[in-house]
Every structure is written in C-alpha cells, then in structure tokens.
C-alpha cells in the first residue's frame, strides 16, 4: 500500500512529545469521565434498555457528534510522555477522510476485500476467524491455525498466541521476542499453506510482547505487508510509544494496519451511553493517531470482560451506525463471548453479535475470542463458522428484524454470563488428526443452527 505522508506521521509523534502535560489521573477523571458525562447530557444519548439493535438514525448521528467532540476536545493521552495529543477540526476531518473505504488484503487467489457498508445495506461482510491472541500450547499452534484456515467461510485468519518459543519463556524486550515472532510466523504461514490457502491474510503478530515482536514479525521470511498488522490504544484513548512505534513501522513498510481499542464498561466512561461515545471517539482517534486502515472498538465489561453483555449490545450497535453513517472508516465488530467452545451459549452470543453488527453496518466481523480469550486453548473454529453463516444470512436484514432475533438470543444466555462455562480446550473439542470438530461439538453446533432457523433466520 502506498503510504507516504511522512510529514503527517511526524506531526503525530510531535503531538506526543510536545502537547500539554497532564497527570494520568486527571486524564481519567476529567478528560474522559467528566467530559463523557457532559456529552451524554448535551447530545441526549439514551435508549430503551430492552432494545439491542436501535433503529434511531438521529440518535446515531447525535452519538457521532458526541464521539467527535470527545475526540476533538480530549484527544489522546501518551503514557510515555504524559502529554495530551490534540488535533484541530480540520486535521481530524482530513485524516478521517483519507482512510480507505475499500481494502484488499492477502494475495493471489486468497485475496479478501473489505468494503464499506451502511446500516441495513445488503452487501457482503468480510469474516475474520481465529483465536484472537488466546494462548495455545506451542505444539498445537499450527494445528489450530490450520483448522481455522480450512473453514471456507473465513476470509482472514487470526492466530492464537504462543506462551513459549522453542520451549523457552518469551522474555519481553529481549531477543526471545524476535525468536517468538519468527516461530509464530513460521508456524502460521506453514499452516495456511497446508490448508491450501498460502496467500491468505493472517493477523500478525498475535503473540503478546513489546513493539519488538511486531517489528521483527513484519519482515523477510515472516509476515507480509498484505497481512493484518495490529496496533492499539490502552483504555481510555491512551497510547504508548510501543504502539506508536508499531504504527510507524506498519506505515513505513506499507503494511495493512488494523487498529483497535477496548472501551471499558463500568470504568471511566461510565455505563452503556459512555461506552457508546467511547466506541465512536476511539475509532476516530485510532485513525488519526495510529493511521489504521481498519478500526474497531471491542468494549469490555469491567468484571466479566465479555462484550456480549446486554448493556453493551446497543452501545456497540449505535456506535457502528454512527460511524457508518458519518464516515467511510472501515470498522468491524470484535466478538468476545463469555462462554467457551462446546457450549450452546457461546453460539447464541456469537449469533446475537453477528446479527447486531451486520444490520448496523459493520464491514467485517472478528470472530471469536471465545471465553473472553483468557483460558488457554479454549477456542475453536466452529464458533467462527457459525458467526460467518449468521453474518451472511443477516446481510439483508433490517435493524428491527435483527433486534427481534437478538432479543430472543439474549434471553437464552444473559442470565448465565456471570457463571459462564468456559467450555473445552481445542484438543478436547476437535479431532487433532482430521482437524474437524468432535462429534459432540458438531452436534451442538447443528442443534443451534436448527434453533436459529426456527427463530426465522434464513441459514
């Protein structure tokens, strides 16, 4: 990708070095907490608690204005320099407008295209499937990636993380990060080749570390510019030098840059209305700060971690509608259910999120960080398969129809979230030789497909 506005990149880094000095506590309480509270009032951001997929365009537009004002007036906080990074109205508008509305990732026959969608627009969504950084034992990493890549409905694969590289602990900011970067990319690229999709776009790098791991992974004999390279904010709207370095590296190498933030429900943003504003301001600022080609906000419940909590559904739906109606940013939904593989509830959660996101205008779905991604090996391709099927079936649905279906699904899982069953490890939910789901898990999946059909979804 041609990325050559180096003066803009330098100006962003300059903001991180020369903006006003602010204490982090002041940032959290004043620039986020108090500001968001004011914006909720000013723009009258509220909705019926029983609605999960609102259809109020005016509310969506007011939400966008609130998110824009938060982005413009608070900006971003750089944790390394304790500086506030501020943009003018013109700067912010220009950089938002400069983002792609269509993006080709991967290579050759395995290319995938992401295209901008609007709420209720009957056009194809792109499916990302994978474990989203959930840890998996090093020896199972390749098999897991291959199992996802074999799923024909998955357009882009997102690998799990490895806790070790060649059996050794990965010490942060050490040469072990470089070893881990290469180990992960070697295993991932071999896995997609075995699946017959060597040009498939891969989320890179999934293993956590400092900026070193992403820099080392985006190089010769490793991940390619056409892969899906990550950099992010820290909640709320904070950035580190490490993330700015990642962003600069992806920009300079002309790599696809995916940027994300995780606004916290029950944190400094407050409740669902505040999270909705955070989910709009975050993507705007991700584009401005980290020059993301794609953006997403995957809010997190302060205690439960999942983003399928009923209060978070409408907040996300409105934020997608707001961004979709007012920008051409390529935005997606990140699906982080509370339940794990092998349970019916994970499939209900995934289906609800897919229905809500697609009808609200997301361009792509990130599926699925099962059991909130915090249980080693507790993720499987079946839930991503279900997500893809529901998503494509939802492409022609209106928000009101989607809301009816989501309401029924939420009723099936919401009470169980606090005690969610984290399900089974990949080795127990899949046959590691055939890389197909175990009969029990396949049976559960088929049962839920039938239930969804009975609810009226055209699968």
């Amino acid at each position, binding site marked *: 990708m041609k990325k050559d506005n*180096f*003066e803009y*990149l*330098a100006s962003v*880094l*300059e903001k*991180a*070095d020369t903006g006003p000095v602010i204490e982090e506590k002041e940032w959290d309480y004043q620039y986020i907490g108090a500001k968001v509270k004011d914006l909720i009032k000013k723009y009258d951001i509220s909705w019926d608690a029983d609605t999960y997929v609102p259809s109020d365009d005016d509310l969506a537009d007011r939400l966008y204005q609130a998110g824009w004002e938060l982005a413009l007036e608070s900006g971003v906080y750089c944790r*390394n320099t304790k500086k506030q990074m501020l943009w003018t109205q013109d700067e912010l508008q220009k950089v938002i407008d400069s983002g792609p509305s269509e993006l080709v990732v991967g290579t050759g026959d395995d290319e995938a295209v992401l295209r901008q969608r609007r709420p209720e627009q009957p056009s194809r969504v792109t499916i990302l499937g994978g474990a989203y950084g959930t840890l998996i034992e090093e020896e199972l990493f390749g098999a897991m990636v291959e199992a996802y890549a074999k799923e024909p409905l998955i357009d882009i694969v997102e690998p799990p993380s490895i806790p070790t590289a*060649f059996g*050794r602990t990965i*010490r942060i*900011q*050490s*040469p*072990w*990060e*470089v*070893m881990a*970067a*290469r180990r992960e990319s070697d295993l991932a690229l071999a896995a997609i080749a075995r699946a017959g999709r060597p040009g498939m776009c891969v989320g890179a790098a999934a293993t956590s570390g400092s*900026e*070193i791991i992403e*820099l*080392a992974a*985006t*190089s*010769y*004999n*490793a991940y*390619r*510019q056409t892969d899906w390279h990550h950099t992010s904010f820290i909640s709320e709207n904070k950035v580190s*030098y490490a993330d*700015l*370095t990642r*962003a*600069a*590296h992806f920009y*300079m*190498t*002309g*790599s696809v840059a995916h940027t994300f933030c995780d606004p916290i429900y029950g944190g400094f943003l407050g409740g669902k209305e505040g999270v909705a504003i955070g989910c709009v301001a975050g993507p705007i600022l991700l584009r401005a700060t980290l020059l993301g080609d794609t953006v997403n906000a995957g809010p997190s419940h302060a205690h439960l971690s999942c983003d399928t909590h009923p209060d978070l559904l409408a907040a996300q739906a409105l934020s997608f509608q707001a961004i979709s109606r007012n920008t051409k940013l390529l935005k997606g939904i990140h699906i982080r259910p509370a339940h794990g593989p092998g349970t019916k509830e994970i499939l209900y959660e995934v289906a609800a999120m897919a229905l809500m996101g697609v009808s609200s205008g997301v361009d792509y779905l990130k599926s699925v960080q099962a059991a909130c991604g915090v249980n080693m090996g507790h993720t499987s391709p079946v839930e991503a398969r279900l997500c893809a099927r529901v998503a494509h079936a939802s492409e022609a649905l209106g928000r009101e129809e989607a809301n009816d279906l989501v309401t029924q699904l939420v009723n099936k899982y919401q009470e169980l979230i606090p005690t969610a069953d984290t399900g089974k490890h990949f080795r127990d939910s899949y046959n590691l030789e055939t890389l197909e789901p175990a009969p029990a898990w396949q049976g559960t999946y088929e049962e839920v497909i039938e239930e969804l059909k009975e609810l009226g979804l055209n699968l």
Partner: protein
Amino acid sequence: MNEPKVQTDEFLNILDKAENGPMVDINDWDQTYIYQTIKDLINKYDLKIDIQDPGVPSDDDMADRVFQAAMDLAVQSGVYCTDTQRQMIFTREELEKVLARVPEEVQIGEGSEKRVIKKRMVDQEGHVTIGGGFWGVVVPEDLLLPMTMAYAQIEENDFLCTGALRTTYGRPIRAFSPWDTLACWQEMRTTFEAVERAGRPGMTVSGPNTSASAIGTVTTVTHGCVRPSDYGSVAFMSELKVSYDDLIRACHYVQTNSFAHNFYNPIYGGYAGGAEGVAVAHVAGFILMKATLFGEAFNAGPSHAHMSTNTFPPLIPAQSLAHQALSRNTNITCANFTRPNAGPGEKDLLYEIAAYQLATVTAGVEIATGVQTATGRHEAHCSPLEVRFLIRAARAAEKMTRAEADPIVKKLIALYKDGQKENKIGKRFDEVYDLESLEPTPEWQSVVDEVVDELEDLGLKI
C-alpha cells in the same frame, strides 16, 4: 545468502547462555575476567609491542601467540550479557567448531553490485574490498542526500556506510521511541535515493546509523528497505559485553538471513590495558562475536580512552598484530576501521589514513572501511575525498609486505603524532565540497595532491 546463517538449535543455545550462565557482577567482570586475565595472558605468552617506535610488526610467532592468548581469553572469560548479568561461557571445542566452519569467502550485494570477498593472507598481494562512507557521522537532514551521492559516485567504493541524522522531518530524535522508526527509515530512504541518483541503484549499503536502540535495525531490515544482501551491523560493547539490544539485532539478522558485520572497540587505556592487551581483546572479540552474533565480516576499531582515534601510534602495531593473528589462524573476514583524529582539509588526516592502511592491509585484512573522520564526533566533518585517498593507499598497500610498509608507517606516524593532541577537526563537508558539482574544493584537492607527492618522497607511490 542461500544457506541459513546458523541452525536454530545452535542459536537457541547462545540465547540460553545469556539467560542461564553464572551471575557475575559487572565490576568483577571488568577487573577480574578482563583486566587480570589479559594481564596474565600477556605474561604467559610473552607478548610485547614496541610502542616507543611503533610500526608494522613482522613477527609471525608473536602473531600466533596473540591468537593463542585470545583463544584462552575467549574460553576463560567468554562474553558478559549486561541485561542478565550472566557470563556466557564457551568451551574451546565450541569455539574451534565455530572457527572451523568459517568460509574462505563471503558475498555482499546483488547483480552488478555483487562483491565476492576472498580471504587474504599476511603479506599477500590481493584485492581489498572498500567500504567507504560516513560511518555514522551525524549530518543535518539537508546534507544527507548530496553527501551520500558524493560517496556513492566513487567508482571503487564497493559499498557505502550511511551517516546519522541529527533530526528527522525537522524534529529531534528520541531514542527508544517511535522517532527511531521514522528517522531510520528517512535515513535509509534517502540513502537508497542517493545511490540511485548516483547511477548505482543496487549498491550495497550499511545502515541505519541514526538509532541508538535495536528498533532502528529491526524496523528497517524489512520489506521495502534494507535488503538481506546489505551490510548490517551489530556489536559488542567494551570489553566483550553484549546487550539484549545487540542480541535482538543479531537475532533479526539471523531470522531474515541477512549479511551482518560485527564490530567491537577495545579501549586502549581501559580494562584491556595497553597495546598488547588491546591486540588480545581484538582477536578474542572477533572469535566471540562469530560465536555469539554470527556475523559474516568483522571489524575492531580500538579506541583511545581519551582521544577516541584508533590511529594513536601504539594502536597501529596493536591492530596490525591482531589482524595478522586472525589472518594466519582463521578464515574470519576481517575489516579495518579507519577512525583518524584529524578532519577534512587537514594533511594529518591523510597521514593517519595512509599509515593505518599500510599497517592493516599488509596484515591481511579483506576489507578496508572508513573514514570515520575526526573520530566521527563532529557534525558533517567528513568528506568523500578522504575515502578516495583511502582507496589509493589501500591499493598501494595491497602490493606491499609488512617489512616494506614498516619504515613508511614509522615516518607517517612521526608526521601526525604530535598533531593528535591539537584535535585538528578540520572543516565540514559543505566547506570542503562544492554542493552543486559534488566535487572537492580546489583547496582540499590541492592538500591531497601535496600529500600524495610527500608520500612519493617517503617511498610510497599511490
């Protein structure tokens, strides 16, 4: 390179040493493992360098004893990892195995810019590869492009080492920050543009030099920037220490199967001691860098504790002896590293360069690199004309023996040694070069012509 630089298991074994070796306090390392061990080895192997009348030693037995002392140092002390405070220990068998598989030739560059660097021996006539450039001298942004073009236009310059930027896009560069990425990319993009404009688009380059952290290397040795066939850099710290940052660089070169040169600057007047100690540390450093960092080419640019230069008179025989030891006992591809005290426009600069080339090329080095003019510490105080002069001196030295070089080197040292105390840093590039024609000013050219005549009177025709 088609073959992997090193097998994964062997490289993991090295990283394991940095994690699991014995804990050693850094003061203990400096004073016992380096200073005391080197002192004992100098006595054990009866190493003596004449620093009263320094020149080019021709004592093969002494060179071999320096090598033995260095092997002992490498086995007894090994390498110190500063991040983990661990001693990385190598057995003699491990090191001998590493040395045994060093090839007799290495290759840099691609296409018409490909260079095969073949082993040379002491006193052996043979072509020396030239690596001319700034070698990290800091330059303002507006001078980087024309200066680089001027270095690239030197036909006999086989590869080009970049300068370091003072600012990037007009902003200061903060180490260990995203500025490292922006600045190093700017440095390398400008360098590639310069070599293209100079008509040598595939020219091998050595960089980046702007970053103080590993980020600079890791961010630029990648798609669309530094190529695996370029001349990468990763180093030890003095004495025989390695940091995680350098292991990160080495690891990235290994993983991308990129050519890398390893360097190390023993300190004269530091824990290595005097001339003999520097010679031992120099040789041990090459052996241990090959075992730890897996480079393909090596240089040591010993540094005077106060003046930084490596043309300080006692360092001339010390480096010559070290290169003789390596040339006679290993296939390691050795580069000299020219770091004179004087700067552009000064005659002394040329005397220093000539003395250094004669002492090291006759000692068997395969690569002549430089010039880190005026010890590399003064902004833009370097010019391509001294590289042109270096090439002429190195070409003359290629046809000489140590014994032939010795009297000339002694005369040259006599010409510059007193001036070293005066720090004649000379002039900036834009004061000694015409920025439009990218040719030296008549004044600077005439100084060179004068020195060429003086050298002829001394018996050296270049």
